[in-house]
């Protein structure tokens, strides 16, 4: 099932969705088994920003029908902290992954402007540990991420500005919260992106339950319409969004020539197969890894089994 993606040779088409798998924490929790049976053919870092971010106040999670709403708020050490502390460690883990065969490391970055993104991309360009760069222009929890990604014109500008600063594969992660995602994908391709990835989470809202488990009201008195999440609105992921993702990935793959990384609600090899069947080159697994840290490997095996048939 090996597949080539923007010049990278991957053992299979399954990778992780940015921000859904912390390889450092997972290694601390699961040890060497994680590296031996590393679930992904490439590893995507969570989103890195120029300045350090603490992330949103809790609560950050809400369980929706067949899905999860998150409002994490992109906590990260900032570019310098990432390059200094995390990148070397991640690079080491990636090189040891798959019993030493190693997996490429993709770094996902987000900036509020073309200037910020350019600095982030330039810094990544300078680091040989980084095999590819993913631009997050789609995070619904951060105003700018949304705005840039939802507007084809702005998106094209930003990608054009960034493109010259790296020779590494440049993946643009699109927002699903837009009228015509294929138009955005087209804009990214026209601006020189090597790949587009989608979907990010769908904008969603969860309200604080009027009463908590004990029957007593957390807020002290019913406060109608009070958002549960510290970040107010959040992003929906998981099985609930799978068919929406499938529609958007199909629309994008039909529009652009560059390879597409499809994701959204994938739980099984059959789900991954469907994204590939509508034109994705790679499939990313996010929320399902929360239910099973080894889900990516299981899905890759299931995919191979179906595909051999």
């Amino acid at each position: 099932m090996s597949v080539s993606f923007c010049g990278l040779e991957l053992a299979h088409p399954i990778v992780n969705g940015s921000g859904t798998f912390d390889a450092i924490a997972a290694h601390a929790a699961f040890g060497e088994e994680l590296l031996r049976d590393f679930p992904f053919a490439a590893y995507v870092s969570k989103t890195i920003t120029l300045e350090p971010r603490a992330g949103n106040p809790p609560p950050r999670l809400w369980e929706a029908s067949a899905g999860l709403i998150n409002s994490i708020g992109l906590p990260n050490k900032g570019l310098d902290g990432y390059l200094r502390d995390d990148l070397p460690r991640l690079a080491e883990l990636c090189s040891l992954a798959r019993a030493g065969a190693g997996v490429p490391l993709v770094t996902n970055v987000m900036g509020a402007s073309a200037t910020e993104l350019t600095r982030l991309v330039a810094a990544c360009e300078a680091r040989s540990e980084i095999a590819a760069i993913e631009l997050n222009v789609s995070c619904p929890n951060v105003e700018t991420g949304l705005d840039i990604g939802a507007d084809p014109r702005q998106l094209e500008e930003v990608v054009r500005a960034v493109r010259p600063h790296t020779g590494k594969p440049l993946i643009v992660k699109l927002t699903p919260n837009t009228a015509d995602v294929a138009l955005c994908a087209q804009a990214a391709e026209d601006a020189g992106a090597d790949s587009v990835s989608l979907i990010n989470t769908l904008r969603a809202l969860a309200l604080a339950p009027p009463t908590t488990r004990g029957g007593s009201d957390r807020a002290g008195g019913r406060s109608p319409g009070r958002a549960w999440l510290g970040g107010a609105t959040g992003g929906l992921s998981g099985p609930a969004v799978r068919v929406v993702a499938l529609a958007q990935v199909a629309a994008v793959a039909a529009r652009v020539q560059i390879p597409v990384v499809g994701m959204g609600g994938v739980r099984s090899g059959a789900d991954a197969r469907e994204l590939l069947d509508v034109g994705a080159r790679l499939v990313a697994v996010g929320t399902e890894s929360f239910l099973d840290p080894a889900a990516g490997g299981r899905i890759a095996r299931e995919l191979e089994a179906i595909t051999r048939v």
Partner: protein
Amino acid sequence: MSDRTSARAPFGRRLLSAIGVDELGAYRVLRVADDGPGAEPGQFAMLAAAEDWGGGEEQRPFLARAFSFARQVRGEAHFLLEDVGPGTRRLCELDAGDGLWVVGPLGRGFSAPVAGRRAILLGGGVGIAPLAILQDQLTAAATTVLLGFRDGARAEGAALLDGARVASDDGSVGHHGRVTDLLAEELARDRNAIVYACGPAAMLESVRAMCAERDVPAQLALEAGMACGFGACFGCVVARRGGGYLRVCVDGPVLDAHELERVDEHAGAPV
């Protein structure tokens, strides 16, 4: 029990089977056939029923749920459950032989008491669970057990530990009032102690404050809504003293009281 290096979980979820669910007053004790590594007191596992997990009007549960190891005996792991929603309800209904998806043991457990200090185990409600396995392993140190409950049915949970002094909000059992009243007494009597606490956020917060005041070391086992339990989602955070956040699942669930400015309202066991 080690010093902050905790047992490692097998990678990936494991399909284990339920041995049975026993009543314990208002609580249930879920017994699972578990040949996995031993858990440190304070560590937890993410559990989900292999069948009939989700659906219905709410279409929940979807994610696995976190539960402290309450005990480990001869290939059995015990979990103390309180039915507070669809996930715990489903787990309370497991029959012998039913499949269970388990990830764990996870997180950082309690650390060993400083030699010479008395260990005070202070639990509230279902939060007594990790104190039971802690007591099992604290054989050496002198221990005092203080448990608080909302009512008599819940107070039956005290049977999980030996020699507990009990307090109940409704006065139906033991001291009529808060378990922290008992802690005040104990610390007044002898402060040369270390407090291991798990329970509702409000309780943990007063334990933190009392111990800080009296400058008694305290380890607090926190809770938080969790999606993954192994540091992947960054969803389970609590504010760290001095800024930033800690992930309860990997930096905790047991935290040194000094790591927190205060215990957030979301960071405790079901009230």
